[in-house]
Every structure is written in C-alpha cells, then in structure tokens.
C-alpha cells in the first residue's frame, strides 16, 4: 500500500523534470491557464419570486468577455468586435451571426481541459437563432451543452468533461472550462430563493499567436 504513493511521487517528479528540460529547448513558451472568478451573468439582485420562480431585479443584458484582454467588455460595446463571449444566466453567446457583428465561432467538446493541447481545425459554429436545432454555438438546455439542471433542487451544475473551444473574430484559438455557476464557487446545498447564482467561474487558455497550440 505504501509503495504506490512513493512511486507516484518519484514518477511525477521525474516527468516534471523531463517536461522542464523539454520546454527549455522548445521555441514556443508554454501558455498559462487563467482562471476568471465570479463573472456576473445578470444575477437577480432580489433573488427569485417564491410563487412563480421568476428572477427579481435582472437587466436582461449580457456580460461580455474578451480573451485577448482577459477582462469584461462594457455593455455599450455590444455592437463591436471587442468581445468574444457573452454571458446571461445559463446562456452563453458568441460574437457572430445573430448575436454579434464579429465572426467568433465555438463548439462544445467532451474531454478534459488538459486533453485538448491542440485546437481542432473544424467543428466551430456561429450563433444562428433562426436554426431550430442549433440556435447557439454553445447549446442551451439541461444536459445539452455545458450544464445540468436538477428540477428538484433548481440547481445548475456544470457537466464534468465539457470543454468549450472558441475561434475568435481575429482567428485566435482558446479553450475554456466552466468551473462554477455560483458566486465564490459555492453552490447551495439545498433549494433557496437566493442561491447567488449567475456568477461564472471559468478557466481558459488563449493562444495569441494564431496557432492551434493550446498547451
């Protein structure tokens, strides 16, 4: 029983040393995964109506995010190409087609964040709300895109193993994993009318050089 962890530590440190050696010889520097905490996606300031479950105090506006700057873009820039993704409730839009003036495309892929070291060349779609089957590049609905909805607890949980791959208007690739839908990554343990939901925490890797390398 005790041999295994020791062996593991030895192997991991050996692997880390090898990786370090390789990256010294490599021309492209390794990219950093960045975690963005608590991106507000139109949170209901007054919680939820106890009778009909409707959110109270929402603006119905998207919060826009840009990979190249790594920060939120002002809502007044909604008609520009400055943003890549827009967040409102459980809906994530991309800046293209029926959602924006840009040509950002995206797809949801099953796998781990680490397993996509190279962005796939194909499979990306723009938003097209006229389409009955795929109105959004990142599908909405429980079990269809990035989240599950539990109707008994009203809780939203990001599905394990769903990675969003994005090709921005500038033709740059990024991968993104949603970590949490709740403020400070604290999902309520029981149903509540003030769940502090609609706060995204996600991690991403953005490749500014235009290559498909996402390592």
């Amino acid at each position: 029983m005790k041999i295994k962890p020791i062996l593991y530590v030895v192997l991991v440190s050996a692997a880390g040393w090898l990786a370090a050696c390789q990256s010294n010889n490599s021309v492209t520097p390794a990219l950093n995964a960045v975690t963005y905490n608590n991106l507000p996606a139109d949170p209901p300031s007054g919680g939820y109506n106890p009778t009909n479950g409707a959110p109270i105090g929402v603006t119905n506006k998207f919060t826009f995010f840009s990979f190249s700057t790594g920060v939120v873009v002002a809502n007044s820039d909604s008609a520009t190409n400055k943003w890549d993704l827009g967040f409102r409730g459980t809906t994530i839009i991309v800046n293209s087609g029926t959602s924006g003036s840009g040509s950002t495309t995206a797809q949801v892929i099953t796998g781990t964040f680490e397993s996509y070291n190279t962005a796939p060349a194909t499979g990306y779609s723009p938003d097209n709300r006229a389409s009955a089957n795929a109105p959004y590049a990142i599908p909405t609905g429980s079990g269809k895109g990035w989240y599950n909805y539990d109707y008994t607890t009203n809780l939203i949980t990001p599905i394990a193993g769903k990675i969003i791959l994005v090709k921005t208007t500038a033709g740059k690739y990024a991968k993104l994993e949603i970590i949490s839908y709740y403020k400070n990554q604290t999902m309520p343990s029981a149903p509540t009318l003030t769940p502090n939901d609609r706060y995204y925490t996600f991690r991403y890797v953005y490749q500014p050089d235009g290559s498909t390398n996402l390592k």
Partner: protein
Amino acid sequence: MSNRSIILFILTGCAWFALPAQDSLSTQKLNEIVVTATRNEKALGALPMPVTLIGKNQLKTMGSLRLNNVLTEQTGLVIVPQVNGLGNGLQLQGFDPDYTLILIDGEPLIGRYTGSLDLSRLAVGNIKQIEIVKGPSSSLYGSEALAGVVNIITERPAFTRGTVSARYGTFNTTDFTGDLSTTANKLGVYAFANRYSTDGYSLGTNTNKTVSPFINTTLQGKINYKITPQTDISFSARSLQENQAQSFVVNSNSVEIQTMGTGTIHDSNIFGSVEHRFSKMLKAMAKIYTTHYATATNLNVKPVDTLYYHDDFSQSYTRPEINTEYFITPRHIVMAGTGTILETVQTSRYGDENKRLQQTQYGFFQYEWLPSDRFQVISGGRYDHNSIYGAQFSPKLSMLWNPDNRFTLKASYGLGFKSPDFRQLYLNFNNTAAGGYSVLGTEIVVERINQLQAQGQLGALFYDLSQIGKLQAEQSRALNVGGRYTPSPGFYFDVNIFRNDIDNLIETQVVARTTANQNIYSYKNLHRVYTDGLEFNASYPLVKNISASLGYQLLYAKDKDVIANIRSGGVYSYYRDPATLETKRLSVSEYFGLANRSRHTGNFKIFYNNKERGWDASLRVIYRGKYGAGSLQGNVQGLTIPPSDRNNNGILDVYDNFVSGYFLCNVSAAKTVHQKLRVQAGVDNLFNYKDALYIPNLPGRQIYFSVSYSFSKK
C-alpha cells in the same frame, strides 16, 4: 475511534452475561427442515442452493418484534428505506427490495405500492421459522423471485399450548402477544393475536415526527382437519389493521402549513387447501389463496380543515393452484403444479379509480435425482404467461456433492424475472408544483402524447412512438457456487460466491417534452447491471453454552452501460476534482457502482443459552459499510438530501460523498423459570447511532422489558 476499538469496547462492555454454562445453542443445525428452496420438506444441509434459516429459539433470544429487526441482523441482508426515506425494504445480494419475493406460509404478500414491501408490517410472535433462499427462485415461484425468496413460516396447530406476553420500551412502544394451539382427534386449531403501538420517533430538529405514532393489530387463525387418514383439509386467515396519526408542518412556497390526518393500512390473507395421499409414493394438493391490501392517507390543513392531500391504494391477489409430488423411486422425485393468478389494483395515483387487472397462468415442474447418497441434482422450470407482458420461462439447475462428511459443495444456476408492476403500467402522476413534469405508465403514455400532439402542445419527442409504451419483464441470470466445511459439530465455515446479470432493468426516462418545456417521464427497459460478491458465515462453539458467529458480505453492484461508457470516453468518464472543481478523466476502477449498496457488510454475534438454569442472552453487532446516496427527492421531514454525486457526472465514483459506514450493537438477556415464566430485557442500538438525513428508518437507542407466560400439555 477505530472500528477495532469499538468492537473491543463492545466485547468488554458486554462480557457480563458470559455466565457458567452447560448447553450450547448452535445457530444453524443442518438437520433442520426447510420447505422454501424446493417446495417440499428438505433437511437444510441437503440443499444445493444457499439457504439461511432463522429458528424460533434465535428469534426469542433476539427479542425482536417486527420482521425488519430480525432480517437486518442476517448476513447479506440490508434493510433499506424507500425513496421518501421511510419504510423498511429488504436488499438481498445487492438487489433492490422490489426483487425479493416475500411469502407467508408459502403464499405471497402484496402491497408494494412504491415497489418495496414494508417488513415492519409483520409481527414476529407467530413465526416458527424464517427461511431465506438466495439466488433466483422464479423456477418455483415466478415473478419477483429474482434475487431470492423470504418465506415466513408461522406456527401450526400442534399439542395444547399457549403463550401470553407483554412488552414495554422506548418511544412508549407497547406490544401484547398471545397465541394458543390445541388438537382434538382429527381437529387442530391455532390462534394468534398481537397489538403493537408506538409513539414513533423524531430524528430532526423541527416538530415533524420521522415516524408518526401508530397502532397495529394482527390476528391469525388456522384450522386443520383430517377427513380420512389420507386426506387433510386446512384453512387459515390473517388480518392486519394499522392506524397512524399524522401531523406535519408542510413548507409550501415558504409558507408553513399545519396539516393533520390519518394513515391506514389493512391487509388480509385467506388460505384453504385439501391434501390427499394416494399412496406412499404419490400425493396431491389443491389450494386457493386470496389476499387484499389497502392503504389510504388523508391530510387536512389546520385549523380550516380543508383537504390538503389524499392518497389511496388497494390491491388484491387471488391464486388457485394444484400440485402433485411423485416418488418414482426414493432416488427419483418429481413435482409439478399449475395455477392462475388474478391481480387487481385500484388507486388515486392512476388519475382515476378504475380497477386495473392482470392475469397470469403458470405451470412448473421439478425433478430431483439422487444418483448416490453423496451427490444430488435438482432441475426445474416454470412457465408463466401474463396478460400484459407475455410469456416467461425460468429454468434452474442445482447440484450438491458431499466428498466426505465434513465437506459440502454446491452450485446452482437459474433465471429469474420480475414482471412490470401496476405502477410502471398505469401511474398517472402530474407534478403541478416543481416544474410541472409528469410520470406516466407505459399503458397510458402513448395516448397522452397523441393528445398533446392533437392539441399542438408536444414540444419534442425523444423516442419513436413505437418504442414507447412497451415493457418487458426484467430478467436475471444467476450463478451461486459455494460450500461448507464442518470440522466439528457446531463449528463450520460457509462460503457462497454469487454473480447476477440483470437485463431490461426498468427505469424512468424522459420520453417527451411539452411546448411549455415540461418533461414527460415514462418507464423503459434500459439498464443492464450486475451484482457479484461473496458471502461468508462461520460459527464456533466458544465454550459450553456459548457460540459465536461471524458473517460478512462483499458486494459489487455496477451498471454495465456506465462501465462501457467510461471505457469509451463517454459522458460518465469525467469527474470534477473536489478541491479545484476542474474536470479529470475517470477510470473504470474509480467507478464505485450503484447507489445504496455497501461494499462491505457483516455481523458478529454471541449467543448464550443455558437451558438448565433458564438463562439466555445475546450480543449482536451489525456493520454496514459506506455507501452512496442516490438522487433522493427529500425525506419525510422536508429536508432535501444532497445526493452523493458531488462532481456532477451522474454516477457514483470514489471522489463522491458517501454515507459513512456504521456499527449497531444490540444486546438482550432473559431468564426463564420452570419453562413457564420468562422475563427479558434488552437494548437495541446500544450506542444510539443516528443519521437523520440519510437513515431516517434507524431510530436511536431503544430499551425494552418483557414478560411472558407459557403453558403446555405435551
């Protein structure tokens, strides 16, 4: 505190009753007669399949009042609550309670209105012995006998004797039991009465009781009459009436409503038979059995007294059967039988109070072949034809070999099945509150979808209409291989290795969605699962009058489709790291298995029995290892139970939260004077183990005292 130190503490703490002794009670004698495994009388040691026998002496020493208390202490049996956290169903070899047939004197008990049969319905006072056959027994008993069969054998008319007893204990629990048996010439009569009442108990912090106060009364009578030396007729009847006083504070959209009402259960069984022995070699029996179960709940809002909730369910089951047994020679025995089952259900849960009916015709045979005194083969099969799901054939083959007097080796292979129950066929449940979803039985779902389509309300259909609304019986194939080694009388090791492959498991599934995004669930044959593991029992006479026994079950219960999905990198093959919430790849070995199954369960017992001095006592330690909680919809106290799956991959893996394993310790001691007066005291759940959230059917510590008086003219 480590598990080992707990056991040590229990042992030292309970060592007081190890008094000087003269006579030992072996927990299982191999020459004891059981009837369930082969439908005829067989010595326990001569059976080629795994059978557990719990005898009267053990029942008396344990001091248990209800059947669930008895079964929870047996190796490989786990008492589990229903979805709502209440009730006491039986999990056997990893199967849910729906898959074990419960018989009383060989005839089935009904009243599984949520699938599980509540074992606390059954009083223990009239039980002569309990026989538990593990492995599928559909070859003799048909539907439901997929995991196994529990047969409760009640007392029969014998010589003149009687018992009266009274007991008082924690939660203001009282129990009064009396029985009487007498014979005169050709006539035999047995009568039994029991009244049990309790204030119930509360585990939570709010005012609602986990179990509300109830009273139940059981009456039973049996008459035997010998018409001729070769012909016996017998008649028996049993009835149970339970009344429960309920008082709940219900939280409806954040408004607290006080509700009060009653819950009632009525359960009755009537049995009649004629048995004739044509010769020493041939006998035949004609019998008829009918049983009825009804339950109703009414809750009114206080103080305005308007109806808040009503629920009723009524089921009946009638079965005439003829069977015959023929000894071609003492080494070739055949048995055959045929019968018809008529079942009806009437309930508010199906949207109307229409009576639903299903009918089954069946025939079975069994051939026992004993080529030598050390080897035997039993083969058999049963054919069932049901008016709704069609035909089913269930064969079984079992073998036993005694290489010498100390070793017995056994193997059996059989098919088991469970037909779709009424709920899966006719349920018509519309939840108007939470999102407005509905759950519809397969016999009505297609009609509803067509209706929605005609009204333009059908949003999406996830299956072709021809794939919805048809259910097949759930089936299992099972192998049990084991043996027993008996170095000396009273000292044995018993091992059984089992494997069950279950197909066509019925699950609820979203089949359609309305334009208003309301899900429509129905039942489909979806899953393929397996359970396998090992059961181990050992008994050892420590010193004179004291015997110790040890039982252990190792269990793996897994979904085969989930395993295939993880292998192929599907939706189940990822999990979220509990600390960072980042996704990682899950390996097949990290998949824990089905919810509510403990990998390790076991028990350790010491029985002391000194007939000469009239003392008997017991110490029983029961262990249930950690297990995962499934997706539960909240327990009776209105608490939402967080499911064990905390990394949202929809399956139970080693990174999830588990319900902790626990030990229960029960002790009892009794003194009998002149074989007439008996005084008993005991404590169940000595260390007061409780888990309000996950194990609401486990009350805390219960102390009891009882007095009984017996007489007999033998």
